[in-house]
């Protein structure tokens, strides 16, 4: 009995050194500021990482492959930064290729993580990182994946001996409140409100030269956005400076194209995944909603017909109205969106072609 206890315990003993080795490799990769496979494979070779499979005997080969692939899998997913996730992909690919089990132990891909991988692929595509896309394709071509329910096999007793593995903090995208706060939804909402406010202002005042109208800042949204972008750039520069003060100047124009490339990818990944993640979908559904609203307000609604001297419905009545109109669409919409819904009921669609708002956003991207 004790022999068996050792055997099962033994493979578990490798969990922490394996994680340490993977993290070490990825931290060296992170220092290069690159997303090139060439750079990754150079570090791999310098570390003799293929040897990590050497010295395993018989069935241990397979259980060790399983262990290390499961350990590396997490780096492919959020919350890690785009560069680390690229490193995670390269690591999985290299481990899959180098393992000593035959046939090779597959990489387990959980259904819930699929969308992360697809989004990751799209970001890589947008930034034209050929090696990233190619390697992802290669893994699919080689049938390297087990399309699974869970990232690991689950045996209930794990519960008791679970030690929560600390995520390597350096690899995680720097949290940033401004970006989380000023996201695409907010910008869009702000655009709507801003436009409506402008229309409202000009509708109350008879003369267009009214000074209160001039108080509206036309470039509010683009400016807000570029400020957040500036902040992000400054922040990532700060981060780089923290790590290596000598290279402080290098973060300017002096960057190599490779660095630039990864900077760009990082920027795209972080800004986009955080701020523009659901942008396309949100916009579409919102446009759809706007149309419905426009329809009711111009045809059936008494609300939009008269500009001046209209009687305002109570908030509750307007809410009910909008709920009625929206039907199913209303469900699942975040509470912040209701501001524009309620406001737009009061206005004719002709005042503002619905696409102009989108254009503002597109321009600012």
């Amino acid at each position, binding site marked *: *009995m004790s*022999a*068996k206890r050792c*055997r*099962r315990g033994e493979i578990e*003993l*490798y969990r922490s*050194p394996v994680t340490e*080795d993977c993290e070490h490799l990825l931290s060296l990769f992170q220092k290069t500021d690159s997303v090139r*496979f*060439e750079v990754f*494979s150079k570090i*791999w*070779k310098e*570390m*003799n*990482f*293929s*040897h*990590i499979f*050497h*010295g*395993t*005997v*018989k*069935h241990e080969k*397979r259980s060790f492959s399983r262990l290390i692939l499961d350990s590396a899998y997490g780096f492919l997913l959020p919350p890690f930064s785009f560069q680390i996730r690229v490193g995670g992909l390269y690591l999985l690919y*290299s481990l899959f*290729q180098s393992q*000593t089990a035959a*046939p090779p132990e*597959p990489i*387990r891909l*959980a*259904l*819930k993580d*699929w969308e992360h991988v697809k989004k990751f692929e799209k970001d890589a595509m947008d930034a034209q990182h*050929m*090696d990233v896309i*190619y390697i992802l*394709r*290669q893994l699919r*071509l080689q*049938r390297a*994946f*087990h*399309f*699974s*329910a*869970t990232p690991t*096999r*689950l*045996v*209930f*007793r*794990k519960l008791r001996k*679970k030690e929560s593995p600390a995520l390597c903090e350096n690899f995680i995208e720097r949290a940033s409140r401004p970006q989380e706060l000023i996201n695409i939804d907010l910008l869009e909402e702000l655009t709507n409100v801003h436009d409506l406010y402008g229309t409202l202002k000009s509708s109350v005042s008879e003369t267009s030269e009214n000074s209160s109208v001039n108080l509206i800042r036309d470039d509010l949204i683009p400016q807000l956005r570029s400020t957040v972008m500036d902040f992000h750039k400054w922040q990532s520069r700060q981060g780089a400076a923290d790590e290596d003060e000598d290279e402080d100047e290098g973060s300017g124009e002096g960057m190599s194209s490779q660095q630039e490339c990864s900077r760009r990818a990082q920027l795209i990944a972080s800004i986009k995944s955080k701020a523009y993640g659901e942008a396309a979908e949100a916009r579409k559904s919102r446009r759809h909603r706007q149309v419905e609203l426009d329809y009711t307000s111009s045809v059936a609604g008494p609300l939009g017909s008269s500009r001046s001297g209209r009687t305002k419905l109570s908030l509750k009545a307007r809410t009910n109205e909008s709920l009625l109109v929206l039907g*199913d669409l209303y*469900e*699942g919409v975040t509470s912040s969106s209701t501001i524009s819904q309620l406001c737009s009921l009061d206005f004719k669609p002709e005042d503002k072609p619905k696409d102009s708002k989108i254009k503002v956003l597109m321009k600012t991207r």
Partner: protein
Amino acid sequence: MAASKNANTNIPDYEYTDVNTNIFHIDSFKTEWLNRLQPGDVSFQPEDQDSSDALFAKEMGISADTMAELKTVCSLDSLRCHPEDQPPDPDVVPPDPTLKTLIQRKKKQDYRATLKISKNRHDLYADELERLTFGKKPETLDDMVAEGEIILNINVYYPATFEKFCYVRPHITVLMMGSHTLAELRDAICCVNDLQVCGEFSNMPDMAPDFISKDHFKSAFFYFEGVFYNDMRYPECQDTSITTIEWAKDRNFPTYTQAKMEDTRFVDLKIKVGFPYLYCHQGDCEHLVIITDVRLTHKDDCLDKKLYPLLTHKHRVSTQKCAVCHVYIGRWVTTNDRFAPSNPCLFCDECFRMLHYDTEGNKLGEFQAFPYVDRGAFN
């Protein structure tokens, strides 16, 4: 919203991280995956690398030269950590390792060298089971596992007895396909209690039947997520779950329902991966059942339908030896036996008869004797 919510619940997520998932419908899970994948992803046929590369180059709008360069950069050669003509021995930890993993393994390797023990039987057995079935193709196409079919890993644990303090709970691991029924799982579970003979036979040891209680007690059930699945294949099968159901009804428990295990396929089930469920037979022999993995089939799986349910792990329990000769596996348990060094005591057939009966076969002294089937007799 209801529709989209329902769709999402069939994308398994953790109920408790790394322990078990929330509940999902297996067939819907399969559909969710297949909707996201291309047929090639689950195909058993290899794809042509060159045509795939050509397609990639076209899609990305890159020249043949660039494509060739990309291939070289991403090739296996680019990862090789040694000169091509001097491959190291993969069975040995390389000298002076720097990787943490290898330092750990070297310690073990050095320790092992001092022991000089040969591999135990269990290790060999695990190897054999796996190696036999990887990518195994059937003789006829009819027996071919379908692409995109569901494969389940199921652990069935043996009742906790003296071994309950061990790190490894004895269990078997069975691979099943989504199209299998629960009855097929039942038939794949081999429990020593199915072979247990009941009764005291000290007065007529020759009358002890060789087996088998499976014949006498055919009733059994599985329990998954509020449903008892009874085996009703034979006329003598009884619904053994009804007692529990009615007991629960009296006590305001959530209502349980019943179904037939022979009519229920795995794809029909709603389950949590990693969650302990129950198999009960012989009236009171209870086994934990854990579905440890649900996934789509892969080209390296055993592709011969006929070999399923496929046993991939079987716990080797050490056999209980005869208290007298310490050589043979125990066949008899005696109680209140003054010839015995302990109470109860285990004897092999030969020692039992030599000690307890005269040459004519007459019983000597007072004792009770029960036929015994060793758990290890299955090895």
